[in-house]
């Protein structure tokens, strides 16, 4: 399988100029919104029961980037979150850990210490999250700081202003620069803020732009705007990573983030993965949920499956 670097070189001519990049991105197949949403809705009617549900719940838990991104975050809050990521259900030690905790750069060190030796990764948002309105050197410094503090994964935001202004090469070069900063030390998730890109055609273009520039993951949103992950925009990004691998051999992960709050919704996303890109993506190396409250609902559903009784919020931890 070619490396990401060779994928980038495969697109060297495409990324040689703003004009060439624009022609390439605008030459991608269009997206019919109604058809895309209908397909996502149709997959949403899959009925996932019993053994399949148990599998899906554990898989979903293992895919969560348990997130806190508040101005009020404190070391205590982050440690509690990390404890929950490592041990989501104190009453049932068979519960898988989450994939990662996701915090601001200044909380990375705290988080890293709290998950040390557990296999739970630390992801850090960076690049002037969530707006991305800063100069490239600031973004690079932000990224370097998080990596230096021990971040395993960097969740960067793209410059939506540049994208919407048609300055695709600028966006490309920023992603590539952050990727270079990450090097082999951290995997890079590229956040498009799909709610601000507004159209599905833009989401497809942004997906290719991100993948060509070296993203390890493409991610829907920051969780900070009105519309975040939806089945339709996630389906579209899954189609993009599928097509990208078919063309380059390089596999890219997908992370819907924001707005996925309960088990039923999470399972719908897993069905999208299963039926769009298949089992090669059914692993937390390739698919993540950016979420916080989702975990408790998954845990309550897990308890219900195990005991036959409906659980309640007092039987899961509030952290």
């Amino acid at each position, binding site marked *: 399988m070619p490396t990401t670097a060779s994928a980038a070189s495969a697109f060297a001519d495409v990324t040689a100029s703003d004009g060439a990049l624009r022609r390439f991105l605008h030459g991608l*197949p*269009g*997206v*019919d919104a*109604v*058809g*895309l949403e*209908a*397909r996502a809705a149709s997959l949403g*009617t*899959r*009925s*996932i*029961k*019993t*053994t*399949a*549900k148990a*599998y*899906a719940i554990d*898989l979903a838990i293992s895919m969560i980037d348990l997130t806190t991104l508040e101005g009020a975050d404190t070391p205590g809050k982050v440690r509690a979150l990390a404890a929950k990521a490592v041990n989501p259900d104190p009453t049932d030690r068979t519960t898988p850990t989450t994939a990662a905790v996701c915090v601001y750069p200044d909380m990375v060190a705290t988080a890293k210490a709290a998950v040390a030796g557990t296999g739970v990764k630390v992801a850090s948002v960076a690049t002037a999250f969530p707006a991305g309105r800063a100069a490239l050197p600031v973004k690079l410094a932000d990224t370097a700081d998080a990596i230096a503090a021990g971040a395993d994964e960097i969740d960067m935001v793209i410059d939506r202003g540049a994208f919407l202004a048609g300055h695709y090469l600028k966006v490309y070069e920023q992603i590539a620069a952050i990727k270079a900063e990450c090097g082999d030390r951290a995997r890079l998730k590229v956040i498009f803020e799909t709610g601000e890109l507004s159209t599905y055609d833009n989401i497809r273009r942004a997906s290719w732009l991100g993948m060509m520039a070296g993203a390890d993951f493409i991610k829907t949103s920051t969780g900070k705007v009105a519309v975040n992950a939806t089945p339709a925009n996630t389906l*579209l990004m899954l*189609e993009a990573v599928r097509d990208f691998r078919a063309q380059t051999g390089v596999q890219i992960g997908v992370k819907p983030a924001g707005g996925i709050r309960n088990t039923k919704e999470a399972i719908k996303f*897993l*069905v999208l993965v*299963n*039926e769009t890109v*298949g*089992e090669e993506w*059914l692993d937390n190396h390739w698919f993540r949920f950016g979420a916080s409250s989702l975990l408790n609902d998954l845990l309550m559903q897990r308890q219900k499956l195990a005991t036959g009784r409906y659980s309640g919020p007092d039987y899961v931890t509030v952290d």
Partner: protein
Amino acid sequence: MASAFEYAPAPESRSVVDIAPSYGLFIDGEFVEAADGKVFKTVSPSSEEVLSEIAQAGAEDVDRAVKAARKAFEKWSALPGSERAKYLFRIARIIQERSRELAVLETLDNGKPIKETRDADLPLVAAHFFYYAGWADKLDHAGYGANPRPLGVAGQVIPWNFPLLMLAWKIAPALATGNTVVLKPAETTPLSALFFADICRQAGLPKGVVNILPGYGETGAALVAHPDVNKVAFTGSTAVGKAIARSVAGTDKKVTLELGGKGANIVFDDAPIDQAVEGIVNGIFFNQGQVCCAGSRLLVQESIQDELLDSLKRRLNTLRLGDPLDKNTDIGAINSSEQLARITSLVEQGEAEGAERWTASCEIPSAGYWFAPTLFTNVTQAHRIARDEIFGPVLSVLSFRTPDEAVAKANNSQYGLSAGIWTEKGSRILAVASKLRAGVVWANTFNKFDPTSPFGGYKESGFGREGGRHGLEAYLDV
């Protein structure tokens, strides 16, 4: 698709429907035996289990039912439209109330997936009655002059592919305009029409306004030929449609026919490709392809043919074939052994004529009638599988080079019911749509239906329109 994420069975409960061991004919508000006592069995195509024994109407029963409808016509047509409307609204509501039961029933008798009966058939059935209910007291404003009169007794013969929906398409406009009806459901799917008879009783519909006569082709022929029938409405094969057209020649009977098709689904190189793949799948595998307006001919621009076929095959391998009552089933059973034999024979001919067959990898249940999703490449206009209606889950793939060629190939058919266009270029959609000789053109979508939208064919796909304001004309003396 073999996957770590295997969906456990998720069957809809069968207990919501109570099928009696036998059913009579529904004549003049009562269930009665056939005059000659004949019965036939209806089986579930997914299991071959006998569901019930059904009275089989003969010529004498046809006469009895037409007489009952004639008798009821006088009062029914004289009712204020607002009162007829309320009966239809009642029926629509009862259908909504009983929709789960009817969906399970239809899936059992027809073999189609519960996903479709639940999400497509039943909502459309109720919507159709709602739509025409509203017309009953507004006929003066329908564009057919003041006080347009009904025709009288309508003899209606419907197919097995959408049993209850086709009943709705026939009965709702007929009753709204003041006609009374005698309807013959298909011999393989009589149950939902008989349940509908019960709904008519629950709604308090006057006796004789709706009569249901299960039976085979000869029952339909007797109904169509009955001298006291004023209106003939038929949905089914083109061959039978032609026989009906001959049999009513020289009479005053008004006729509408919804017949076969060989719809072309045209994909241009600038199509929204993922949605086009979904549209192709929906176009030919919805209801196992047993759809008169199916997009059974894929016309793909040669420059994207390989890419599109790869995507299509990958997608087809995710289709889930099996128990129609399972909520995750995409492809159900073929309706009957006869239909399966017809599909099989045409597919064999396709292979014999040199087309290249590809069939999705899915396990076929041991009992019942099944056919895995199949497509043929290297098909030309000369192949029989490009011309004959297969009425099954079989797609013939042809290529074209230019829009002109696409239109020429699309129109090169005795049929003219449906067509699809996939392109992101607006002017191309409008130019191609205007040149296609087909009654329904779906652009960047496929197989969409709505009670307000007229449906019907050009050429040998029949004449007349069902649905919308246009659908009233078939039942008015205008």
